[in-house]
C-alpha cells in the first residue's frame, strides 16, 4: 500500500497553499496532508492502547468513563471576601457545578496578611479570596459539606498553611479528616518555572511539599495533595509538548522526593493529580492527553516499580485556554471555549473548567459563569460524545500525533536529565529560557500574521471595549484590615508567640511541620506571621531575569 506516493501526489498536484510549512501545530510539528494506516504501522493496540481502565490507560483511566459518570464540572468560585466567596460557591453548586476551585488574592498568594504594607491596594484582588486566619476559612466553608463537595484550593507556596486551616476547620466541625476530599494545587516546581509566586529556595520548598504529602498520606487519604500543573507553564508560553514534558518531569520529581522522604510509591502516587491547559489546536490537545496517560503509566511501572494500578493512573483536571481569548468581539470566545472543551472531553479529562467569555476584560460575572457552565452541560447531555469511550482511537492522525508527542517528551526528559534533574535545570535557567523563547515566538507570529486570531489580527472591528474591573467594595480592604487588627488584639498573645517559636524550631529541624501549623492556626496565628517565620529560617529566593 503506497500512501507515501499518494501523499506526494496530493502535495505536488493539488492546489496547495504556498508553503506546506505553514501546516504546523502549536508544538511546531509539521502536519501531513493525510495520515493512513502506514503512519501507525508500528502501533500495537494491546500494548500501546490497551483498554479503558487498564494499563497503559491510553484509552481512559476508568473502565466506564463518561457512560457512567460525566467529568466533574469544576468552575472557579472565589471572590474577595470569604463570605461573598461562600455565596458564589453555593450559587454555582445550585446551577449544576459538581466541584469548586478557589483562588487566593494576591497578598495571600505572596504569603502576606491583609494588613501588610505591601498588600495595600491588592486585598481581594483578581477575584481571589483573602485568607489571613482560620476565621476566614470558617466563613469561606460555611454551610458546605466538606465530605461531599470536592474543593480544589489553588494554593501553592502557602499550601501547608491553607491545608492546616482546612484540616483545623474540619476537626472543629467533627468531620473526620479521612473523609475529606478535594485538592491542594501545591505544585511549587511550576512556580519557579512559570508563575513565580515562590518565597523560599527550592530545597526548603520541597521539604514543605513532602511534609504535606506525608501528612495527607497518613491522615487525609482521600485528599489529593498535589495537582501537578501544566496550565501555568502553557500560559507563560510553553507549547503543548513542552507543557506535557515539563509537567510530567515535575511529577516524576515529586515521586522521587516522596520516595526520598521514606514513603512507599504506592502509598502516595495514587493521589497525585494533574492540571493541564486545553490549547486551541483541537487534535493536538487530544493527543497530548492520551500521550500523557501512556507516559505516566509506563514510567510509574517501569522506573518507580509501582505495583498498585492506581499509581499508574494519570488523573486530569483541564482548563480551557485563557490566553487564547480576546477582549475584542467577546462572543467569539464562547466558540473557542466550546471547541476547546470538546477537545478536553474527547481527550478523556476527569474534570473541566470552562472560561467565561469576558475573561479578557473582567472577572466572570454570574451570567458569564453560567454560560460557561452550560457549555459543558451541552456537550455532556446533547452531543452524544459520551456514548462511547475514547472515540478517536484508531484514527491514523490522532494515533500518529499521540506517538509523536510521546517521542518528543522523551527528548525533553533527556535534556533535563543531562542538566541534573528538574531542580538543577530550574537553577540553571533552562525553563526560563525555553518559555521566554516560546512566548516571544508566539507574539511574533501574531504580529506577523503567521498565526491568526480572529477579531485581533484578522477580521478586526472598531469596537468600544473596555476593561471591566470588578467593583470591589471600596470598604472591603478597610473592613478586612480592621477585622484582622481586632483578631490580633483579642487572641492569646503568649500562645501565639509559643506557636511561632515552635514553627521556627521545627523548620530548623526535619520533623513534619503540619502538626505545628495546625496548632498555630487554631490559636489564630495568621498566614503572614507563619510565612514570615519560615522566611527567617529558609531564606528568600530571587531568580535570574531571563527574557
Amino acid at each position: 500500500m503506497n500512501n507515501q506516493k499518494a501523499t506526494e501526489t496530493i502535495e505536488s498536484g493539488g492546489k496547495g497553499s504556498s508553503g506546506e510549512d505553514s501546516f504546523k501545530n502549536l508544538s511546531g510539528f509539521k502536519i501531513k496532508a493525510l495520515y493512513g494506516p502506514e503512519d501507525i504501522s508500528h502501533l500495537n493496540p494491546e500494548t500501546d492502547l490497551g483498554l479503558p481502565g487498564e494499563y497503559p490507560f491510553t484509552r481512559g483511566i476508568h473502565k466506564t468513563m463518561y457512560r457512567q459518570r460525566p467529568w466533574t464540572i469544576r468552575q472557579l468560585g472565589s471572590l474577595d471576601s470569604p463570605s461573598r466567596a461562600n455565596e458564589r460557591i453555593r450559587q454555582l453548586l445550585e446551577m449544576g457545578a459538581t466541584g469548586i476551585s478557589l483562588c487566593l488574592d494576591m497578598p495571600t498568594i505572596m504569603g502576606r496578611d491583609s494588613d501588610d504594607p505591601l498588600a495595600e491596594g491588592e486585598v481581594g484582588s483578581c477575584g481571589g479570596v483573602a485568607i489571613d486566619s482560620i476565621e476566614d476559612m470558617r466563613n469561606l466553608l460555611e454551610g458546605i459539606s466538606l465530605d461531599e463537595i470536592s474543593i480544589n484550593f489553588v494554593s501553592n507556596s502557602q499550601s501547608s498553611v491553607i491545608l492546616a486551616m482546612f484540616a483545623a476547620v474540619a476537626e472543629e466541625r467533627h468531620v473526620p479528616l479521612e473523609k475529606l476530599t478535594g485538592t491542594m494545587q501545591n505544585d511549587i516546581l511550576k512556580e519557579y518555572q512559570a508563575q513565580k509566586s515562590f518565597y523560599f529556595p527550592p530545597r526548603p520548598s520541597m521539604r514543605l511539599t513532602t511534609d504535606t504529602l506525608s501528612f495527607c498520606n497518613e491522615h487525609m487519604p482521600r485528599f489529593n495533595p498535589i495537582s501537578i500543573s501544566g496550565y501555568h507553564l502553557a500560559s507563560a508560553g510553553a507549547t503543548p509538548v513542552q507543557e506535557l514534558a515539563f509537567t510530567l518531569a515535575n511529577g516524576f520529581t515529586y515521586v522521587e522526593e516522596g520516595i526520598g522522604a521514606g514513603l512507599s510509591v504506592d502509598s502516595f502516587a495514587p493521589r497525585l493529580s494533574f492540571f493541564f491547559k486545553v490549547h486551541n489546536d483541537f487534535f493536538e490537545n487530544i493527543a497530548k492527553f492520551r500521550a500523557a496517560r501512556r507516559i505516566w503509566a509506563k514510567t510509574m511501572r517501569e522506573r518507580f516499580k509501582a505495583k498498585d494500578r492506581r499509581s499508574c493512573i494519570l488523573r486530569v483536571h483541564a482548563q480551557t485556554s485563557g490566553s487564547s481569548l480576546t477582549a475584542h468581539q467577546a462572543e467569539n470566545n464562547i466558540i473557542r471555549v466550546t471547541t476547546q472543551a470538546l477537545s478536553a472531553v474527547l481527550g478523556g479529562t476527569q474534570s473541566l473548567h470552562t472560561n467565561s467569555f469576558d475573561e479578557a476584560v473582567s472577572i466572570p460575572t454570574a451570567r458569564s459563569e453560567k454560560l460557561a457552565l452550560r457549555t459543558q452541560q451541552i456537550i455532556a447531555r446533547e452531543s452524544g460524545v459520551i456514548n462511547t469511550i475514547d472515540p478517536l482511537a484508531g484514527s491514523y492522525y490522532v494515533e500518529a500525533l499521540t506517538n509523536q508527542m510521546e517521542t518528543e517528551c522523551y527528548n525533553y526528559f533527556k535534556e533535563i536529565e543531562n542538566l541534573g534533574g528538574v531542580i538543577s535545570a530550574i537553577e540553571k535557567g533552562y525553563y526560563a529560557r525555553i518559555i521566554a523563547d516560546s512566548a516571544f515566538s508566539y507574539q511574533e507570529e501574531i504580529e506577523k500574521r503567521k498565526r491568526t486570531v480572529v477579531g485581533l489580527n484578522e477580521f478586526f472591528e472598531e469596537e468600544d471595549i473596555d476593561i471591566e474591573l470588578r467593583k470591589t467594595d471600596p470598604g472591603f480592604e478597610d473592613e478586612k484590615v480592621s477585622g484582622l487588627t481586632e483578631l490580633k488584639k483579642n487572641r492569646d498573645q503568649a500562645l501565639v508567640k509559643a506557636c511561632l517559636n515552635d514553627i521556627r524550631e521545627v523548620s530548623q529541624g526535619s520533623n513534619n511541620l503540619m502538626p505545628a501549623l495546625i496548632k498555630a492556626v487554631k490559636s489564630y496565628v495568621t498566614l503572614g506571621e507563619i510565612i514570615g517565620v519560615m522566611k527567617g529560617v529558609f531564606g528568600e529566593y530571587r531568580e535570574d531575569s531571563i527574557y
Partner: protein
Amino acid sequence: MSKGRKKRILIAKPGLDGHDRGVKVVARALRNAGMEVIYAGLHQTPLQIVNAAIDEDVDAIGLSILSGAHNTIFPKIIALLKDRGASDILVFGGGTIPKKDLEKLKSLGIGEIFTTGTDTHAIIDYLDRTLER
C-alpha cells in the same frame, strides 16, 4: 537628553503579582528594537523602582500591572519621582486597566497605557516618538 544615544528603559513588575509573560515579551521587543533595557524583575516596590530608575539614568519606566492595583501604584511612582526631582522620566505601562482610570492616571502624569491586544510595535513607535523630543 542627547539624540543618538540608545534609549534606556527600565521595565518592572510592581506589587505582588508574578505573571511575567507579557512584561518579558515587551522587554525583549524593546531590546530587539535597539533600546537599552534594564529589567528590574518581579515584586518591586515603588521605591525600589524609582531608585533603580534614577541610578540607571533611564529615559522611561515601563510597568506591567495585571492585578488591578494600578490606582495605588502609579500615583506612588509619580509622587516619588517628583520628590527626587526626576519628573522628566517618562512613565508608561500595560495591563488590565479600564479607560476611566486611564484618564485619571494620564492627568497625574502617566504617558500612555497599553492594554490587552496591543501590538509590540505600537509600544516601540510610541517610545520612539515620545522620547525623541
